[in-house]
Each structure stands twice: as structure tokens, then as C-alpha cells.
């Protein structure tokens, strides 16, 4: 059969994490990501890893904190309200500089919300739902292949930056199927190598009393805490330069520039084709990294552009970043659906066309 395999998003996400090197999965069931714990329970033990169903999302994040603090590569997944419950642990792990890959298969909110796809966790993901000064790099894939590649890479990135990395998918990406090429299995990190690769990890000090390590987020002395936060922000400043990912399309002569990520970007791309049939030129800025946000991409928008439209499955949470990106150069509009409703390409094209007509008049 072909090199490509046809996979459901959740299955492919799980396989990518395993192939990228994740060996410890902790989770608690929630739709629309339930195929992930199911898949992990069957597959991760085959590679010497561990699957554990926690008693809650709070349990899951803290188990991941423990496994990662001991030098293991941990992977967790949940959906919006479940990710909300994990925020305390994420803040702790950022402070303690413990790596983790977090997958949010987001759905409609607020509260328990619904089970259909949503993007209204944008602020939660990019501004942080936990306490204190911290940042989490967030990547938003638009296809299952892109999600596979990002999750695979995120395992290394988390180790490199010693920080949690979040993949922001949505229910549609998780539940749909696409042909994908799976990456090769990364070489195994052996238990005896952890001390060398992760000298900060708690591997048991044995007789080596001099190299005793501590993983903590508690710093009782204000000067000590301030110094630690300053140090973290030097790291984030570097990440802000190095982790920006964006795709742009047709910006040079676009009358309308859309900004959209994830599933909404795919729908918007079809809307752009529909607008072209009407003779309207439209372009797209697709942020792949939501933090750091690709503000510089907005410099590519030409003077031919009349309006920038943020297309979202939320009440316009990304608008704040779009405004920072374009300053006062162009008017900004929002085309959105929420509550789990996926906007159609026709709906986006029609509303964009009306907005342009109003501006031209």
C-alpha cells in the first residue's frame, strides 16, 4: 500500500508524540480528544512507556510534572475545560523549567460548553490561564500532517527550551481524517543517559551528594523570585525571536487580508477562492505560532489593502494581536462564529464582500 496512511487526527497526534520520543502519557477523558487516551493506552506501553488515566485533569498535569521533573518525556492532551483545570500545573512547570508537550483539542465554551470545535481558548493559550509571569509557546496546525510534524518537533523543543509547549488543535482536526506521512521514530533516550542530557532532572542522587538537584517553583525571597522571573523573560525574549511561524498568501495585491489560524484558515482559503470568482483579491496571514505571534508578517500588507479581517471561531480573541500587528494602518473587522459552529466558506466570502462594499462606498 502507499507510503501515506489515512489517519484520524487524534490517532495521528498520538502516534506523532510517540515517534517524537514521548513515553509518559497522563490523561482524563474528554470529548473530542478521547481517541488519544484510547490510542495511548494501547500503543505507548509497546515502546517501554507508560499510560496512566488520572483521577482528573489536575492529577494528569501533576503526574506529567513529576514524570518530566524526573527527566521523562511527558505528553498530555485534553480539551478546553480540561486544559483550564491544568493551568496551575502549567504555571508551576514554566517556573520550574520542566518540559512538556500539551495538546489542546479545543471545543466550544465558556464553561463545559459543547463538544463541537472552537478557538475560544486563544487567550487562555497565549495569555496564560495560570498565575504569574510566564509564557508558553503555542503552535496551531491547520492540517493533520502539520499537527503531526509540530507535535513531533515539540518534544525536542520542550526539552530545548525547558518549558511546556502547547499544540492548539480543534475538534475538527482531531475528528477528521487525512492521508499523512508519519515521521521516523526518534532514537530512544536511555534511562542512564538522562542525568547527562538533563542535569537538572531528579534522577536520585545516590552517593553524589554534591550534585543534588531541586525542581521547584517556590521562591520565598522577593529578590530571588524577581531574579528568576527576569531570567525566564530573557529566555522568552529569545523564544519570541526564534519560534515565530507563519504562512502568508497573496498579500502583495490583496484588497482584503484575512488573518485566520487552524481549521478556520482552511475555510478562509476556500473563501478566498470564492472571492476571486467575484473578482475580489484577498490574501491570508496564517499564524502557526500563536505565541510568539507573527506581528512582523503584517508589515508585508501592501497599501492596496482596504481592510484586514480576523476570521475566528471565537468572539474575536485574536483581534487584540491583529491590532498590535497592523497598528492604525488599516481598519480591522471580525468575521466569526462561536459555540461550536464552524463558519462556512460562503458565509466568510459573503460577509467579507459586504464589508469591502461598505468601505468602498
Amino acid at each position, binding site marked *: 500500500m502507499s507510503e*501515506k496512511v489515512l489517519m484520524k487526527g487524534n490517532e495521528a497526534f498520538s502516534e506523532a508524540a510517540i515517534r517524537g520520543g514521548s513515553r509518559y502519557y497522563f490523561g482524563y477523558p474528554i470529548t473530542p480528544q478521547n481517541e488519544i487516551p484510547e490510542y495511548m493506552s494501547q500503543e505507548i506501553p509497546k515502546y517501554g512507556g507508560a499510560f496512566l488515566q488520572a483521577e482528573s485533569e489536575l492529577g494528569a498535569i501533576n503526574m506529567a510534572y513529576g514524570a518530566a521533573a524526573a527527566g521523562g518525556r511527558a505528553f498530555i492532551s485534553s480539551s478546553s475545560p480540561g486544559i483550564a483545570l491544568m493551568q496551575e500545573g502549567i504555571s508551576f512547570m514554566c517556573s520550574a523549567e520542566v518540559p512538556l508537550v500539551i495538546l489542546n483539542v479545543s471545543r466550544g465554551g465558556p464553561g463545559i460548553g459543547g463538544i463541537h470545535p472552537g478557538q475560544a481558548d486563544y487567550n487562555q493559550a497565549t495569555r496564560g490561564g495560570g498565575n504569574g509571569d510566564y509564557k508558553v509557546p503555542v503552535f496551531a496546525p491547520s492540517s493533520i500532517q502539520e499537527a503531526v510534524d509540530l507535535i513531533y518537533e515539540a518534544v525536542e523543543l520542550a526539552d530545548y527550551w525547558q518549558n511546556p509547549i502547547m499544540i492548539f488543535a480543534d*475538534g475538527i482536526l482531531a475528528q477528521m481524517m487525512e492521508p499523512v506521512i508519519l515521521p521516523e521514530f526518534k532514537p530512544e533516550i536511555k534511562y542512564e543517559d538522562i542525568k547527562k542530557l538533563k542535569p537538572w532532572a531528579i534522577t536520585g542522587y545516590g552517593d553524589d551528594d554534591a550534585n543534588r538537584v531541586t525542581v521547584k517553583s517556590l521562591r520565598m525571597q522577593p529578590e530571588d523570585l524577581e531574579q528568576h522571573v527576569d531570567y525566564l523573560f530573557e529566555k522568552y525574549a529569545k523564544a519570541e525571536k526564534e519560534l515565530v511561524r507563519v504562512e502568508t498568501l497573496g498579500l502583495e495585491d490583496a484588497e482584503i487580508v484575512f488573518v485566520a489560524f487552524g481549521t478556520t484558515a482552511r475555510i478562509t482559503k476556500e473563501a478566498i477562492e470564492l472571492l476571486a470568482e467575484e473578482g475580489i483579491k484577498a490574501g491570508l496571514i496564517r499564524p502557526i505560532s500563536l505565541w510568539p505571534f507573527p506581528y512582523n508578517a503584517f508589515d508585508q500588507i501592501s497599501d492596496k489593502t482596504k481592510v484586514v479581517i480576523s476570521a475566528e471561531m471565537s468572539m474575536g480573541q485574536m483581534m487584540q494581536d491583529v491590532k498590535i500587528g497592523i497598528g492604525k494602518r488599516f481598519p480591522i473587522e471580525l468575521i466569526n462564529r462561536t459555540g461550536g459552529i464552524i463558519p462556512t466558506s460562503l458565509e466568510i466570502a459573503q460577509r467579507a464582500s459586504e464589508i469591502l462594499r461598505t468601505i468602498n462606498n
Partner: protein
Amino acid sequence: MAEIMPEIGFIQEASRKIIVTGHYGSGKTEFSVSMALLLAAASNEKLALVDLDIVNPYFRSRERREILGEAGISVHGSVFQTEVTAELPALGADVRAPLEDKNCRVIIDAGGNDSGAIVLNQFMKYFNDDETTVLAVVNGNRPETRNIDGAITHINAIEAATGLIINALVNNSHLLRETTAQTVIDGHELCCQIRVKTGREIWCDCYPVGIVDPSDLPELSGRLMPLGLYMRPTWLDVGIGN
């Protein structure tokens, strides 16, 4: 691409109740919906589609109730006729109506794998007769059914979970819009190997309409079923990213 009227006599000759089982994501729902619509277009017989997939939260055949309804096909499934997103694995009592109606041809879209197919058990009294055909849909591009052992493991698991005997195979090997004639032919080869090992016949080979030209599949002619991508919104196939 030449439009060839599909020869669907073999479907019309099939038994009154057709149970569609298979691996997760093998394409049971697209197959069931397509088969129902082909039958509806070919005759005025009374038709029903029973959606027993209570495992998947999205992309269920009852979401296409409107298209099916317009074609004269009654759809039975979730208790909540208008609430397709309810996270309740519940079925309506009306599921039994078409099974009991001797004048109604019924296609039963089971849930994926053995865990999804287990729902069939509560309706077993309707299936122990000579009016029932049980099909297993095979997509050779799904990771777990790419080879003969994986495919047979799934067939055996579904039989063990339901107590039903799978009568025949449906080759639905595809890669969505990346499907080629060779994809279908490779899948047919896989099903031939399953046939040799298990004695199950190939009931039909499927090809996606508008993507694969059936005239490129001359060696499979006779029992070719065109499948429409009814469950898939068009924007899912707009290339973006990778």
C-alpha cells in the same frame, strides 16, 4: 471524466438487511450513505438507514438526514432527532421499526471496530435470519488494516464482539482526494488475500466519484460502487500548510 451509470444490480439483489461493519475510519458511513442514495435513485423501494455509531462525536450519518430524507430514505439513530452533538450514546426506539418492517430495505451503519459494533448485540434477534448480510469494509490505507494480518484481526474481533458472521468484504481503500486507480487496485489485492485466507468473497470495490475514473478499473468491473464524499465539507480538501 466519463460518467458511467453505476451497475448496482448486485446491491438490489442483496438481502433486505445489510449490516456495514469495519475498522474505525474504514469508510462505513460514506459507504452506507452512498449505497442508500444509489438504491433510492434506482427504484421506489422503501429504504431506511440505521445509524448505530454512538462512538464518534462528529461525522455521523444522521447528520446527513436532510439529503437522505429528500431521497426518501428514513434515518434512525440518536434519541435526539435534532441534537446531533449530544454526547449521549443513546439510540431511539424507532431504530427497531425498519428492522421489523418486512417491506423496508435497511442499511445498518455500525460503529467502528469491535467496540463500536458491540451495539449490534441488542438487535441480534433481527439478524438471525436469511435476510441479513454482514459486510466488513476494508481500507488498506488505514494503519491497522494495511496488511492481511491486521485486517483479519479486525474481522475476527468484530465477529467475536457481536456473534455475527461477516459474509463478505467491501474494498474501500482510499486516500480521500489523493486516491488513484492504483489505490483501489492495491486494496482489491489486499481483499483477494483476505479471501484466500478466510474464504470471504469481495462484495464490491469502491471508488470516489470525481477522483478516480471507473474506466481505469477495467479488471474490477461488475461490482464497482461509486462513493460520494457526502460527509466531508469541501474546505477540508483545500490545501493549506503541509
